[in-house]
């Protein structure tokens, strides 16, 4: 039996889909190949038909074909019989037959030929292919604005058993490549009826950019058909093309797209497109069809308000379009709905992220209320950006519950937000208006205001803010029954009389949601009331004790309760009563002539509302002899006072104070302190630093006031403004007694804490004594803390020495100015005596010893110094001259030559005699006869007497310089050079003018300049001039020990030929010494220890 178990799929169906292909492909290919080979073998052997193929379009009729065997023409077929079917033989003359669908299972098919051949096949439904007819699309249309294709077709479902699943495949082709740009498949169900299907597709590339074609095919899957399901043929392509116009060449036009997405723009052009750009960015061109090009924009950014321009430039034109890239609406945020007046509901929200789209592309909002079914649209305000949007919804009477949905839409999408509210719990009243205030009495006012809105069904909660002028603020709540469009009234009590208040109001509801805004402020002055108490009162007796001065203080505004118009004062005793009426404010003092008896003074303040309770005080004080004066110092403008509690004081304490420098009765002010207090701080703007005040503490008893304490004090201590005035009471050689006076209180400016006394050596004109430098080692300081001490003796001083004395007072506020004085101590008389006696004694001893020696050696002396016949070889003078002449060629002019002795001439001293305070007695020592031709040393014996030099100096440099200070200086000066000293103006006399002989050589004495001048002048002088080089001569002071040394180099002094040896008798000026120390020694100085000297 020939069994066909398989069927080879035609070659043109290779790419078709086989739905029953459950085996894997290699196995299937092997089986088919084997089956084919088997059939071929049978056919060739028996001359049978080959390749029986059966297909069906609708599963009702099978269409089978086969190919005739070799040697058998197709027209020789006689009949085809199917074995297990009635009337199963079909006569035919071709190799094709249509038969009704066979039941599942194998069926034997026999093909009989006219020539007697016979072929047998086994036919099974599984071998039949279901190939539906090619679908025919009814319509293909395009929406060019959205680049969308719309396809319609009929599935012809009535021709198929139902339900059947149909799978469709649609392809979209785009010129020029004709490759599918889109291939999509989807399923439908055949319901036994012809159904028209729709398919839409939006192209990335605008449809205008290129012709588009669409084809469709399908296959059917029925659960009872076990054969092959094969795709139908593709339908004929339907084409869509755009007819270009002259105006628009770039696509898409004015499109709104999501920011960040990709988009393709194309330009339809007949000429070559040179460039394409978006904004200022040029993009690579994609060539499409003909000269048409496109550019692809990826991740496009949010556009400006006017959109993003896309421009294509051709050789002769510029084409463009605008794209708007933005975002769909964000979900409305912070959606809130509330009412101000129960007439409309105001919903506000935040739009969230900006869409980047404006104008017609901006977001439109719609507020819908689901219960009432009403909705309102939001009117676009272009000026709004990110602030809250508001929308008013008219309330329906009686509706409290609202379910709002807010929807925002723009071309890119929509978003919504919902809120469910009870409007009675979302009330924010309007601002209260027409606020008015009306007096009820001095402490109560009525406040009224208007509140627009219908609040009839709820209670209002309102707040009244009360502000006093002193910025004190109070808020009071009031619950009010609501009404419709009504005014509301509340009473505000507990106010102060005659006080300026500022009122304002805001309201909410009892079910609090939000406060309204505050109303405008309303200022109001409450009515006056009588003063709550009498004024603070004090009294003082006049200095003569005949008048009583009554003081009172103005009442503070919170106690005056109105404007005080006048005061009434009365003084009453057992015998009489005196009154002073209508003392107008602001006078706060009255004086009444009274005997010094006990009176009760009463003071009453009056305003327009009435009189205050009287304030009473007794005229007399309770005496107290046990009063100590204490000290106190304050801080800033305040001073702190404390006292011990006194149970006897039952009323209060009074502290009064006054400036201590004022005359009695002195009263600056007073304060009252409760009787249970033991301390207080007194503060007054009148207090000034450095001023002494007297404070008096009074205690109040039933009998009157009693002085308890007296305090002097300063708010702040300052340094004294004057120096203590001091004088020198006594002066000795080693001590000075100083005495000073008190500083007046007004100038002390604080409590005196002591004195500082400085002293040091120094004279008035010495710079270093002008001021005392801190830390100077020579300054001696004495701190006198005993302020009762008024004298000071300074001991251990040096005699005949000038001292600089300074005295300063100090307080805790600092040091006061200084007062200084110069004092010279007296001379030490014992030292003076010793200074005289010791040289005399030494001279006598030396004279006696010399006389004795000369007497005993008189023969030797005579032989040696005064022989009868002098031996020239023994003449020292000649030896000396010889050695000199041999040793120095420069002194050859001094060789012994017969010469005429020079005249003796007295030289002028060019030195200025310094100021010498000592009194010097200078006695030249007698010449020693044995010392031939040596310079005579001059020994000065100085005997000084100096009465104390007193120099008084007040530290006033200007005054010092002006010489205004009285000064007495006792100076006795003698100097051996003084008669020879010449004023400086005389030194300027030209020596050439002097007549007579003059030695032609002058020695330098002072300076090289003068040397030069002198030499120049000498050059002008005619006559003989010794050629000695005087520069080689050393000038030695006569008081120098060297001057007496005969072996020294200065032996030329002794030359009998010296022409000017006298010059060395004049000592050079010691520039560094202000005194004539070089002129001789003072015995006084010798015996004194003067380190400064």
């Amino acid at each position, binding site marked *: 039996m020939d069994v066909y178990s398989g069927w080879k799929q035609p070659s043109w169906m290779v790419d078709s889909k086989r739905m029953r292909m459950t085996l894997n492909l290699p196995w299937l290919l092997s089986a088919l190949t084997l089956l084919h080979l088997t059939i071929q073998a049978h056919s060739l052997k028996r001359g049978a038909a080959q390749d029986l193929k059966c297909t069906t379009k609708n599963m009702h009729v099978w269409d089978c074909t086969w190919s005739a065997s070799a040697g058998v023409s197709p027209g020789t077929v006689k009949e085809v019989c199917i074995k297990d079917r009635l009337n199963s033989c079909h006569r035919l003359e071709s190799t094709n037959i249509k038969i009704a669908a066979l039941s599942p299972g194998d069926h034997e098919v026999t093909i009989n030929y006219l020539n007697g051949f016979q072929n047998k096949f086994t036919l099974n439904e599984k071998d039949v292919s279901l190939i539906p007819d090619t679908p025919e699309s009814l319509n293909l249309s395009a929406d060019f604005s959205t680049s969308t294709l719309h396809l319609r077709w009929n599935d012809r479902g009535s021709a198929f058993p139902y339900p059947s699943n149909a799978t469709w495949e649609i392809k979209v082709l785009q010129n020029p490549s004709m490759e599918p740009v889109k291939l999509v498949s989807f399923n439908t169900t055949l319901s036994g009826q012809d159904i028209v299907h729709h398919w839409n597709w939006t192209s990335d590339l605008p449809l205008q950019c290129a012709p588009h074609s669409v084809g469709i095919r399908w296959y059917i899957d029925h659960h009872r058909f076990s054969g092959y399901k094969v795709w139908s043929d593709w339908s004929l392509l339907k084409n869509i093309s755009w007819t270009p116009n002259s*105006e*628009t060449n*770039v696509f898409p*036009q*004015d499109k709104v797209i999501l920011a960040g997405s990709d988009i393709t723009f194309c330009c339809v052009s007949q000429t070559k497109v040179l460039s394409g*750009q978006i*904004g*200022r960015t040029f993009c690579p061109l994609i060539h499409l069809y003909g000269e048409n090009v496109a550019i692809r924009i990826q991740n496009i950014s949010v*556009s*400006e*308000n*006017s*959109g*993003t*321009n*896309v*421009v294509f430039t051709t050789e*002769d*034109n*510029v084409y*463009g*379009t*605008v794209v708007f890239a933005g975002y769909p609406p964000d979900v409305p945020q912070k959606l809130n709905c509330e009412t101000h007046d129960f007439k409309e509901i105001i919903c506000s929200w935040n739009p969230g992220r900006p869409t980047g789209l*404006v*104008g*017609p592309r901006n977001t439109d909002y719609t507020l819908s209320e689901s219960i009432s079914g009403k909705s309102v649209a939001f009117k676009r305000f*272009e*000026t709004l950006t990110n602030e809250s949007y508001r929308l008013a919804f008219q309330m329906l009477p009686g509706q409290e519950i609202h379910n709002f949905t807010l929807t925002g839409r723009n071309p890119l999408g929509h978003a919504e937000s919902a809120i469910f509210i009870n409007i009675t719990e979302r009330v924010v009243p309007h601002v209260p208006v027409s606020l008015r205030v009306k007096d009820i009495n001095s402490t109560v006012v009525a406040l009224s205001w208007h509140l627009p809105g219908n609040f009839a069904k709820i209670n209002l909660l309102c707040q009244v803010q009360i502000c006093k002028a002193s910025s004190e603020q109070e808020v009071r709540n009031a619950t009010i029954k609501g009404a419709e469009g009504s005014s509301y009234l509340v009473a505000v009590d507990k106010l102060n009389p005659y006080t300026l208040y500022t009122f304002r109001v805001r309201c909410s509801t009892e079910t609090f949601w939000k406060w309204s805004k505050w109303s405008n402020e309303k200022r109001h002055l409450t009515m006056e009331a009588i003063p709550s108490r009498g004024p603070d009162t004090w009294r003082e007796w006049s200095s003569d004790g005949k008048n009583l001065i009554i003081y009172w203080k103005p009442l503070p505004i919170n106690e005056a309760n109105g404007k005080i118009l006048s005061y009434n004062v009365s003084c009453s005793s057992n015998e009489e009563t005196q009154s002073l009426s209508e003392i107008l404010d602001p006078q706060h003092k009255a004086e009444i002539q009274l005997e010094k008896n006990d009176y009760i003074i009463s003071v009453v303040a009056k305003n327009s509302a009435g009189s205050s309770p009287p304030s009473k005080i007794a005229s007399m004080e309770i005496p107290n002899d046990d009063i100590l004066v204490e000290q106190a110092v304050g801080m800033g403008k305040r001073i702190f006072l404390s006292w011990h509690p006194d149970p006897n004081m039952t009323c209060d304490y009074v502290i009064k104070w006054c400036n201590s420098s004022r005359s009695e009765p002195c009263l600056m002010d007073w304060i009252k302190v409760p009787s249970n207090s033991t301390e207080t701080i007194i503060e007054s703007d009148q207090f000034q630093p450095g001023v002494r005040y007297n404070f008096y503490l009074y205690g109040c008893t039933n009998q009157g006031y009693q002085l308890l304490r007296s305090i002097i004090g300063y708010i702040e201590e300052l340094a004294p403004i004057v120096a203590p005035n001091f004088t020198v009471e006594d002066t000795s050689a080693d001590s000075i007694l100083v005495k000073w006076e008190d500083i007046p209180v007004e100038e002390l400016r604080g409590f005196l804490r002591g004195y500082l006394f400085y002293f040091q050596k120094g004279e008035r004109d010495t710079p270093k004594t002008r001021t005392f430098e801190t830390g100077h080692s020579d300054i001696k300081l004495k701190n006198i803390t005993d302020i009762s001490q008024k004298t000071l003796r300074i001991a251990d001083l040096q005699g005949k020495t000038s001292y600089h004395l300074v005295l300063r007072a100090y307080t805790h506020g600092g040091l006061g100015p200084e007062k200084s004085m110069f004092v010279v101590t007296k001379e030490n008389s014992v030292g003076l005596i010793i200074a005289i006696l010791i040289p005399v004694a030494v001279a006598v001893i030396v004279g006696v010893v010399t006389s004795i020696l000369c007497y005993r050696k008189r023969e030797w002396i005579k032989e040696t110094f005064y022989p009868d016949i002098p031996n020239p070889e023994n003449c020292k003078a000649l030896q000396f001259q010889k050695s000199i002449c041999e040793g120095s060629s420069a002194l050859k002019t001094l060789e012994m030559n017969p010469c005429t002795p020079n005249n003796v001439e007295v030289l002028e001293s060019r030195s200025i005699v310094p100021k010498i305070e000592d009194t010097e007695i200078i006695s030249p020592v007698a010449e020693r006869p044995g010392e031939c031709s040596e310079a005579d040393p001059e020994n000065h014996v100085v005997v000084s007497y100096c009465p104390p030099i007193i120099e008084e100096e007040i530290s006033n440099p200007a005054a010092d310089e002006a010489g205004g200070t009285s000064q007495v200086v006792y100076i006795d000066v003698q100097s051996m050079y003084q008669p020879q000293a010449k004023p400086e103006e005389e030194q300027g006399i030209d020596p050439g003018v002097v007549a007579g002989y003059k030695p032609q050589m002058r020695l330098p004495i002072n300076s090289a300049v003068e040397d030069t001048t002198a030499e120049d002048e000498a050059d002008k002088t005619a006559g003989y001039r010794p050629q000695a080089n005087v520069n080689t001569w050393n000038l030695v002071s006569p008081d120098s020990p060297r001057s007496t040394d005969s072996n020294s180099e200065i032996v030329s002094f002794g030359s009998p030929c010296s022409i000017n040896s006298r010059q060395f008798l004049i000592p050079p000026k010691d520039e560094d010494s202000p005194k004539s120390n070089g002129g001789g020694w003072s015995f006084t100085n010798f015996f004194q220890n003067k380190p400064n000297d």
Partner: protein
Amino acid sequence: MEDPQADSSISFLPHLEAKIRQTHNLARLLTKYAEQLLEEYVQQQGDPFGMPGFSPPRLSLAGLSGPSPSHAGLPLSERLRLDAAALGALPALLDAVRRHQAELNPRSPRLQRSLEEAARQARALGAAVETVLAALGSAARGPGPEHSATTALSTANSAASIFSAKVLGLQVCGLYGEWVNRTEGDLSQLVHGGVA
């Protein structure tokens, strides 16, 4: 001015001379305003508007075109008549541009104000030039171009794309500057007595 009196040297009456000078000053002022308007306009349109090298071709505006190259060769009176006609047509065009910009750039009120003022100023300058022409004995051509230009632009605005509207607005702003500038030049000749 085409009559012999006009072609000869014109003896300006003082008030006429003052009017001409005033109109000339107005034109000179509007020249600067027109430059500012164009600058502000291109700034609000985004790139590549205002970029160097971006010069879209001129669209056809019925009833109004730019001053032709032969304008300078015309008699002065004819030039002033053309100026007045163009200035009469510009306000409607500027208003149309303003309406479009109000929709396109709603958050740029300054540009809208500038366009509104430009329309008013063009109208004032056109009226002033007509007054001068009338004083000189030459009548203007009437309000014809304004109506046709308005119609053309309205049609263009409604049908054309936004890009075309932008280009059209650019062209209108440019025309405004060109005509104001040309008017200023023509009035300058009149001020200096250079009547052709």
